[in-house]
């Protein structure tokens, strides 16, 4: 075998190796998302058990404002959309567009988080904190766990922005962008559940 041939073969195997690595990372990330699903499922279960344990405190019905939660939902949905556009641009190797969509996604995510924190502080200032009842404990924990994930997502968006700026759209950054967008869509999905279970069903349909 000539040296050129060996080099070609080595390059080819290296590429398959890299392809396999991408594939493997994606698979591993899916498994992680599944475990996160179980985590949220457990929190949903605790909420379902405790949602009527108000211990003389406010009920879900009296506490939540549906329009507010709806606004949060819409913001997150739009951010999921912009995140999708980001991935499309990444596949087209449009670095500037990727950065722009990343930025918009970040702003929307931050807006969502701000709204959520405002809602929390509103409840707490009225004396309806997590200490008040089992219901409120489970509400705060479920929603804040999602919020914590969003915070992590925002942090991830920032690092991705930095990496795209610094390295451009390489195989590795595109892989990471893909994972990040998966994560973001996943959080959106979880929020839909939170919106339905916490605000719609438990809060009662009073618009």
């Amino acid at each position, binding site marked *: *075998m000539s040296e050129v041939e060996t080099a070609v*073969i*080595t390059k080819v*195997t*290296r590429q398959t*190796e890299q392809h*396999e690595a991408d*594939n*493997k*990372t994606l*698979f*591993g990330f899916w*498994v*992680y998302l*599944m*475990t*996160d699903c*179980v*985590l949220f499922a*457990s*929190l949903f*279960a*605790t909420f379902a*058990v*405790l949602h009527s*344990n*108000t*211990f003389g*405190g406010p009920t879900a019905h009296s506490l939540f404002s549906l329009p507010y939660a709806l606004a949060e939902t819409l913001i997150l949905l739009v951010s999921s959309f912009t995140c999708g556009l980001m991935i499309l641009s990444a596949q087209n190797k449009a670095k500037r567009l990727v950065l722009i969509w990343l930025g918009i996604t970040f702003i929307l995510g931050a807006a969502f988080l701000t709204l959520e924190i405002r809602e929390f502080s509103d409840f707490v200032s009225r004396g309806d904190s*997590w*200490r008040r*009842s*089992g*219901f409120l*404990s*489970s509400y*705060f*924990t479920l929603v804040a766990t999602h919020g914590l994930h969003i915070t992590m997502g925002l*942090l991830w968006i920032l*690092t991705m922005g*930095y*990496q795209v700026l610094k390295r451009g759209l390489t195989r590795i950054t595109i892989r*990471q962008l893909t994972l990040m967008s998966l994560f973001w869509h996943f959080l959106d999905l979880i929020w839909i559940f939170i919106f339905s279970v916490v605000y719609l069903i438990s809060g009662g349909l009073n618009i």
Partner: protein
Amino acid sequence: MFGSLFGRFNQGNVFPDSKITASAAIGIVVLIVVVLSLITITRRWKWLWNEWLTTTNHKKIGVMYIIVAIVMLLRGASDAAMVRLQQATSVGVHHGFMSASMFQQVVSAHGTIMIFFAAMGLMFGLINLVLPLQIGTRDVAFPFVNATSFWLFAAGALLINVSLGLGDFSGAGWLAYPPLSELKYSPTTGVDYWIWSLQIAGIGSLMSGINFITTIMKERARGMSLMKMPLFSWSVLGSMLLVAFAFPILTVTLTLLALDRTLGMHFFTAGGGGNAMMYVNLIWAWGHPEVYILVLPAFGIFSEVVSTFSSKRLFGYKSMVWAIMAITVLSYSVWLHHFFTMGASSNVNAVFGIATMLIAIPTGVKIFNWLFTMYRGRIRFASPMIWFMGFVFLFTMGGVAGVLLAVPAIDFQLHNSLFLVAHFHTMIVSGVLFGYFAGLTYWFPKVFGYRLNERLGKYAAYLWIVGFVLAFGPLYILGLMGATRRLDHYSAATGWHVMFIAAGIGGAVIACGIGVQIIQVIYSYLKRDSTRDITGDPWNARSLEWSTASPAPFYNFAALPVVSSRDAFWEMKHAKKRPEIPELEPLHLPKNTPAGLFIATFAFLFGFGMIWHLWWLALIGVLGIIMTVLIRVTSGEHEETISVKQLKEVEASLTNWRDYA
């Protein structure tokens, strides 16, 4: 203002009042100092750092898991010895050598440490050592994650031992049922140590679960379809699927209890709208699968051991695979059997009782298949087989006890009694621990290049088996006599004293077994030249891990194996034509990194901060973890290349079944 800087250290009672705990703590500190100075004197720091602390190699991680697990096994065993001593002496007017609260801490620590740090550690150690070799790959799917998992496990193990010297440990039993584990009834640091050491180690386990699932699904050797995968790997797949589905529940449960205790929430409190029964449901929704997480890999080990030492193909491979998968699925549907006595309706109890009994079917199938693997074989009774024989007898007996406990109407009479304690020890000691001991003996030469002494290994197994019967037989009887678990004292009129003394003697015999095992390791090391494995295949075995040299080189296989049948290596050995030697290619292996160690260190600080209400320290921990992860993911290349020349040099130094050099 300044006070909050020191958190709970302001509240006094920082150091243990008990002389036993204090001396244990001092002993550990002295031991650590001795080890550290030994390393310094022999100038081994650099070696330690490069070869071990920053390694991402699965075999070294496996060895470290096993070392930590054995240390924790000894700790858990000394807790057990203290329990046996107390119960053998604390009767009537005598009150034993421990106070009630200390006894309860020891009991809780024993259970917690044995399950989370001894059994889980041995399991992950063995999986790390064997799995990549067995499926013919060079490492796990995510080596850095693997290192982080191990260091988190080690951080959890360290944290739980800190409770010996600072503060106290939980006395609420190994699963810390609320309301007893709530702040109102357990105001000290004990339960917090329990929560955070398990939380840190548990997240490591969860990451390992994801890692090994991906490894098995994506990294198998070419040609190894799932139905050609050796049974140990199958059992690991089942076990890791359980980890991935069960450990998030543990994470949530521990978090909720911590929120109750630190932020005044009301998940499980008595009053305030809390629901303690929900905790019991959640913890067992994790806890029951946990039992199968531990026992499935042991089943896998026995499958390898029985077939190897009978020199015969495993009987009923497909049945075995189906049985593993059936157990995996069923183990999620039975958690309620841990609390039939909580007042659920007859229908609910009956359904869960029946679901529990269903598990006996695939388990029984496995036992029959093992027996028929031996049938028409040529059985060599090496020590792994002795462990297996002990397992078959004890595990079957424990299974019968389990069937009794699965009938709710019977369970009302046996629950929380020593009968129950004897039952689950039978399952976990004979099922899990014996399996791991067999596995350790079996794969030891693959890792270290020489065999363990067989004679001492057999003595240890005999002592363990006899000791087990002596220690736990009486507990079955005591349970029927109405003795409940976790008693630090009982009245002489009960007549239990004789049985507790018998159990104590059994415990002493087991302790002798452990002693022989320690001697076995030292002796085998000293005599290693006489038991060197130069073939790479000391047991005439069947699966891929035996096709490479012993000890396995750091890259496992110079050329990745290609598989065409189930007992891949057996086939290679017996093929008429030796397969061609493939052309070697440069390898890409993960670089060393201290990031895992750093993450775990910060996790330890975080946990310690949360326990002692040192919020600034907890914050440093969190920020430290985030920073380390960020630096790691944004830094460049994580792999290094081994050239063909380097590869050939290493291969030349190995004696191998197949010569590449």
